[in-house]
């Protein structure tokens, strides 16, 4: 069981994901430099948070051209589980592995705080350990998390159950006040058609230990471990 963590110039949460996979879960974990095309036999690929290429131009817009992304696309097409967290989600959107795009938060400022999300889809390799409909608390930290897509794409995502997480209040109600960035229909995370590629703005890597005040995020990584074990 091996996690491969892609490192773009400007990735910041590569070590945080490595820490969860290796130190907390006891799995193998390796960094994959963005110039490499060899995924080093990873069973799960994580695109971590950060500011790949400084987010210059637009978050993820340059990173999608990194050589490693071709290998990630191939891996995903073969059904390999891919998780994009925050900036990683933005890269997946820019690379076309997930539909839609990000705009700057509606408050026009960077937002770092805890949010609540309702689990809408428990059938992905990253959410199987969360009961559907349950509420999860995770921190966010981003400037461009205002998810958007044409209405027909949003309809299709909802119809096909590909909205994985929605921002909600602590009681699970999806309200405008609970939406930290203005994301369309409160969408915090989505999956591709096959369900093996998941992107989300909140950071499960930042809430995987009780010492940090919250360990609800580790289930995303544990879900991947159990999904692979039963495959």
């Amino acid at each position, binding site marked *: 069981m091996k996690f491969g963590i892609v490192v773009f*110039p*400007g990735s*910041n*949460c590569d*070590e*945080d994901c490595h*820490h969860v996979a290796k*130190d907390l879960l006891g799995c193998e974990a390796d960094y994959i430099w963005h110039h490499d095309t060899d995924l080093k036999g990873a069973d799960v690929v994580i695109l971590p*948070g*950060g*500011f790949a*290429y*400084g*987010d*210059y131009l637009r978050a993820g817009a340059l990173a999608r051209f990194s050589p490693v992304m071709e290998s990630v696309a191939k891996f995903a097409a073969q059904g390999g589980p891919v998780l994009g967290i925050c900036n990683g989600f933005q890269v997946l959107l820019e690379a076309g592995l997930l539909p839609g795009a990000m705009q700057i938060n509606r408050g026009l*400022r*960077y*937002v*770092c*705080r805890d949010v609540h999300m309702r689990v809408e889809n428990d059938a992905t390799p990253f959410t199987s350990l969360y009961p559907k409909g349950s509420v999860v608390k995770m*921190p966010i*930290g981003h*400037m461009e998390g205002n998810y958007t897509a044409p209405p027909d794409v949003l309809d299709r995502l909802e119809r096909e159950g590909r909205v994985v997480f929605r921002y909600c209040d602590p009681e699970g109600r999806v309200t405008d006040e609970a939406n930290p960035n203005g994301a369309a229909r409160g969408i915090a995370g989505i999956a591709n058609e096959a369900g093996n590629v998941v992107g989300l703005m909140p*950071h499960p*890597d*930042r809430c*995987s*230990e009780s*010492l*940090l*005040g919250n360990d609800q995020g580790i289930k995303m990584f544990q879900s991947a471990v159990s999904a692979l074990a039963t495959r």
Partner: protein
Amino acid sequence: MTAITEELVREHNLSDDEYKRILEILGREPNLVELGIFSAMWSEHCSYKSSRVHLKKFPTTGPRVIQGPGENAGVVDIGDGLAVAFKMESHNHPSFIEPYQGAATGVGGILRDVFTMGARPMASLNSLRFGRLDAPRMKHLVDGVVRGIAGYGNCIGIPTLGGETTFHKGYDGNILVNVMNLGLVRTDRIFLGRAEGAGNPVVYVGSKTGRDGIHGATMASEEFAADEAKQKRPTVQVGDPFTEKLLMEACLELFETKTDAITGIQDMGAAGLTSSSFEMAGRAGSGVELDLSKVPVRETGMTPYEIMLSESQERMLLVARRDRLDEVLAIFHKWELDAVEIGRVTDSGRVVLFFEGRIVADLPAAPLSDRAPVYDRPRAPLASPEGPFLWQTEPEPTEFGKCLRRILASPNVAEKSWIWGQYDHMVQTNTVERPGGDAAVIRVKGTKKGIAMKSDVNPFFCMADPYRGGAIAVAEAARSVACTGARPLAITDCLNFGNPEKPEVMAQFEAAVRGIADACRVLGAPVVSGNVSLYNETDGRAIPPTPTVGMVGLLQDVDKHVRMPFRANGDLIAVLGETRDELGASEFLRVVRGRDEGPCPEVDLEAEKRLVDLLATLAEKGLLASAHDVSDGGLAVALAECAMQGGVGATVALDGAARSTALLFGESTGRAVVSFAPGNESAVRDLAKQKGVPFSAAGWVGGDRLRIDGRGKPLVDEPVDALAGLWRGAFRKALEAADVL
């Protein structure tokens, strides 16, 4: 060749005496490049010429100190083969001119100071002082500074764990932006800024050199006249956090994988290539030869003068071992950074600069710093505010609850998540205590340890009494760190004052330094790094004396850290320390009475030391449910904060000889509010007695109201929810009113 005229010398901010000294050192006239170099190296910012004689009073050594002042950052041993490197620095003048870039490059500079030492930066704090929100340009400054700190720190992936923000008219014309960073380094991998080994290559890495920031160090050593801020804009540097991220990762990879390949490294901060080359040669007693034609430049036609004095950001100078040069360059090239051999180390003791084949400067290295001017500037006798004070005779307010609400809603006390919510404070997954607590706490991965950090100073105390104000800054920072359960290790500082050529300003400076030094000595926390920012004046008005202290403490077991919020119904509340009849320089007087009025509260450093020891011991023994330092707004505000953060009420009865206003809102030093399970009461009481700290049982946690009685009389009785709503919403409201949002 440009003739060196008197006018040119003056334009370089050099006095007649200083120019005479240059002629003496050289035995000839300098050329323009050399004059520029002297001007930068002897600027107040680089030479500490007005402050040096006083800074000698600081205790700078201790059993844990690995590196004291004089390097890029101080380094302190935390055991397990690890150390922390930290420093605080000001970016006041640039931030006043261009707030976003000024603050951003302040962050960039302090990060380079830390990772240059071989440390991975782990946490930043900032201390911000603004004028009144309705002062000219102030809303633009507040917004720009916060965005700038966020823009740089978030992008590079180093958490900003908060700090402190104060608003006062004394900063209307000069805001202060002090930034602190702390990094973690292996004790066997500490790097210093020394040019060692004749023949070794001198390598330039990072961004190309542009025309930005030329003479930034000199600018930071002058006062402003009105409107001048606009004209100075070209001297402010522009930050590129992405390049700094690459530079940081490349350096850290180099330090880790090619430890023996480099003999010294230094960041190009103030005075750029000038200070880095002269200081590296000076420290090692060596010399360097540089070919400025080889320096990567951003535009054509740059002169040697411009290249030497540019303060373009994200650049480093390092010395590699000759036989390992290729390995060093390869790492920088992997990160797609410029890395060019621009010269070599010599044993001549001179810095010789070439440009297009000719020598453009030839100066002795050491004398530029060793023989830099040192001034013991005249000081006026300090005029302490003398009583009787109005607050001692005026009637007490009738509605104390209303006073509490007003203080909680004042910009200085109100919750500041509008600021720290824009900073990524969780990246690196070490944040144990987020912003809003007494001190930030991070864990050290791979160990059981934790590091607590706090930046602190009460400028209003310093206005009333700079000596006590300086001492209290250290004591309060130590207390805050101890409230989390940490024991103080060492401090860094950033001493912000007005024009040192004014005897009254110099007197403030000297007294504050003495206060800090005395407190550091008693509390066993030496000064390991720091920065001085003078000439914080506009139109002849100096800022309040603001010696910011950055305290670092160590928790042996981070699992035992203590937090501020009240926790459980039925827990008991006690006040540690003594409440005196003091109301001078308090938030109460400023907010409720609208007056800056003395005197500064008293400080008993021995008592502070006992309290710090008690708080850390209580935490280590696991006896506490919560702890919170009593400072701005006094006991009432401290109790309210514990209750609001915990979302629970409290019933408290205060006793003592102080008048009711002082009981509630007086800012007597050396106090903390703690809560604990009833079963721990005798243990807490006994330990307090044993450590010699006054213990007053005050009340209990529970309900949904904050009720405070004073000597049996009900003074405050407010719903905690309502207080919390006010406290959390007030700062945003003030910004909205000032049109910042």
